[in-house]
Structure formats: structure tokens, C-alpha cells
């Protein structure tokens, strides 16, 4: 990558990139706070039970077990969230790197899981027939997929399933984002601000398959 290419990629991150980073971080912080609240209340419950036991009240062992199961459950949940956060944070380490599109789409699907759930939407990621591996700027691609999902959330409204499917043809690598109910030919006018510089920096193209209710992100490779 020469210095001109690098400048284009820095410019593409811009305000939209910072907003993307902020939204993902805020969503993760919110989920972690919810997890801490559950752990906090279960710890408090154990304190309540200990206090009662000190006053001679018998403790049901199953009640202790239930609290312990909650600790384990919430720790696993937090671990999954932090693994995603770590992968996301490290995606800015290199401006160019080899990625597995199914893997990257899965990460964005997970990160967007809570904003989707707030709209009663589910995100599914379909595995390709064979691995779709190519070289790109991971952060810019993540940002672009996120903006496509934001568009899809707004267009679809509450309820439904959005499916991300990586596809490799002889000429291109594509990501299909299907299940967008309100998709129309003028989708570009309703896309979130900042997607065009990302398309340019990635050498990508975004087209609408209106009958298939899908956005098709064609990526260079």
C-alpha cells in the first residue's frame, strides 16, 4: 500500500468511523453493565442468605447452586462480549490484512446483536460453501457492513431476520444482506452518512436487489 492509498483510507475513517467505534463501545458498555448488575444482585443474594444463616435460618443448597450457575452463565456471556470487543479493537492494528469474510461478518453480526434486538430484529450469518478469504482493510469493511446494517434496521422496521451471506464468484467477493423489507431502488439516498468514502477506499460497490430484499456489497479482490 503506497502513501496515497493510506491517506484515502485514513480519510475514509473520518467522522463516521469514530461514530461507529463509539456506538460499538457504548453498546458493549451497556451489555457489560447489565451483566455486572446480575452478578451484583446474585452476590447480594448470597450475602442475604449468609445473614439469614447467621441468625439460624436453614439455607436451601439449591438456592446457592442457582446463584453459582448465574455467576458462571454471566461470566461466559461477558467473556464472549469481551472476545468480540478485543477482535474489534485489534481490527485497526493493520490497514491491510487477510480476512475471512464469514468470520468478519459474524463479528459485526455479534456486535450489532443488541442494537438489532432493540428493534426486535435477529441477525444471522450464513456460512459460504467454501471459505471467502481476501485482503482488505478490516476496519473499513466492518464500518461499511455496520452502516449497511443501520440502513437495514431503519428500512425493515421492528421484527424480522437479516441474513448476511458471503459469496465468492469468479470475478468478485460479495456480501449479501438479505431480509430488508423496505428496500427500494433509491436506497442510496437513505444510507447513513459516511458510506461513500468507505466504498471508494475499499474499491467496493453497493447495489440493491429489490425483489430479493437484499443489499449486495461487491468487494474488490
Amino acid at each position, binding site marked *: 500500500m503506497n502513501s496515497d492509498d493510506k491517506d484515502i483510507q485514513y480519510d475514509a475513517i473520518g467522522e463516521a468511523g469514530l461514530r461507529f467505534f463509539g456506538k460499538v463501545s*457504548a453498546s458493549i*458498555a*451497556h451489555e457489560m*453493565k*447489565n451483566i455486572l*448488575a*446480575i452478578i451484583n*444482585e446474585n452476590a447480594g443474594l448470597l450475602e442475604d442468605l449468609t445473614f439469614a444463616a447467621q441468625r439460624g435460618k436453614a439455607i436451601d443448597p439449591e438456592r446457592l447452586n442457582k446463584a453459582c450457575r448465574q455467576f458462571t452463565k*454471566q461470566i461466559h456471556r461477558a467473556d464472549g462480549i469481551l472476545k468480540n470487543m478485543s477482535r474489534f479493537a485489534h481490527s485497526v492494528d493493520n490497514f491491510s490484512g487477510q480476512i475471512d469474510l464469514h468470520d468478519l461478518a459474524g463479528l459485526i453480526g455479534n456486535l450489532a446483536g443488541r442494537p438489532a434486538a432493540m428493534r426486535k430484529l435477529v441477525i444471522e450469518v450464513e456460512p459460504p460453501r467454501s471459505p471467502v478469504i481476501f485482503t482488505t482493510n478490516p476496519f473499513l469493511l466492518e464500518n461499511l457492513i455496520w452502516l449497511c446494517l443501520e440502513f437495514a434496521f431503519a428500512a425493515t422496521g*421492528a421484527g424480522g431476520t437479516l441474513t448476511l451471506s458471503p459469496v465468492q464468484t469468479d470475478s468478485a467477493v460479495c456480501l449479501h444482506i438479505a431480509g430488508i423489507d423496505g428496500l427500494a431502488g433509491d436506497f442510496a439516498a437513505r444510507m447513513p452518512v459516511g458510506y461513500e468514502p468507505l466504498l471508494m477506499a475499499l474499491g467496493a460497490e453497493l447495489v440493491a436487489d429489490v425483489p430479493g430484499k437484499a443489499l449486495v456489497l461487491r468487494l474488490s479482490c
Partner: protein
Amino acid sequence: MSEKILLIDDEQDFLTVMSERMEARNMQVSTAASAKEGLEKVTAGNFDAVILDLMMPEMDGIEALKLLKEKNPDLAVILLTGHATIKQGIEAMKLGALDLLEKPADLNALTEKIHAAQAQKMLIIEKKNEEMINKIISTKGW
């Protein structure tokens, strides 16, 4: 007298353990896993306080707070949130929330606010009764 509380939060595991702890403190607790369900329960029940999560699917806490206050302007609503911005906090207070606590909350602090809510409710009832008695005295000729 035990307080009648409605907990509204989309985290079922949180509702389960929180209601168990509050019941151990002699409170009568009902739960709702969505704002919509919470609004239905508020219509049916006479609660001393509603503990409401700020961020929930379908309808967020601010929107739910507006509707709760429309149904019952005197209802004490305490908001619980994972990450409130100052703007959200101000908006909640302007809409008449009793308080806004950040998760994870201290149950003792929450319990104090619930006691305060019940005391406030008693004052409102007493004031309303007094107004009604004064009205009767001033309009009747005996």
C-alpha cells in the same frame, strides 16, 4: 405496610434475582420483561413505585416513562440504567422520574428511594383527601 413494586427490565435473570431480594425485604414485587407488559400491569395494579430500565427493545425507558406518567401523574418511577447520558438523565427528571440510578445499583440505596416514594405517595393521598373534605365542607350547607 409493605411496598408494592413493579420491576420492568428486559433482562429476565435480573428480574428473577432482584425480585427475590426485594421480596426478602417485605416488598410485594411484580415483574415485566417489556415496557408494553409493564404498562399493562401498571393499569391493573396500584403500585407504590415502578423501577424501570432505560434501554429496552421496542420501547425505551424514556418513552415508557412518558406513558406511565400519562396514565398516573403521581406514580413514582425510578429509572435504572446501564449507561445514561447527562441528557437522558435531565430528560427523565423533567418527565417526572423520582430518580435515576446506574447499574449495578446498591439495593440499600434503591430501598431507601422506594421508602421515600411510598412516603411521597402517602402525602399525595392525604393531600387529595384533605382537598376533597374541604370541597365537601365548602359546598354542603351543614
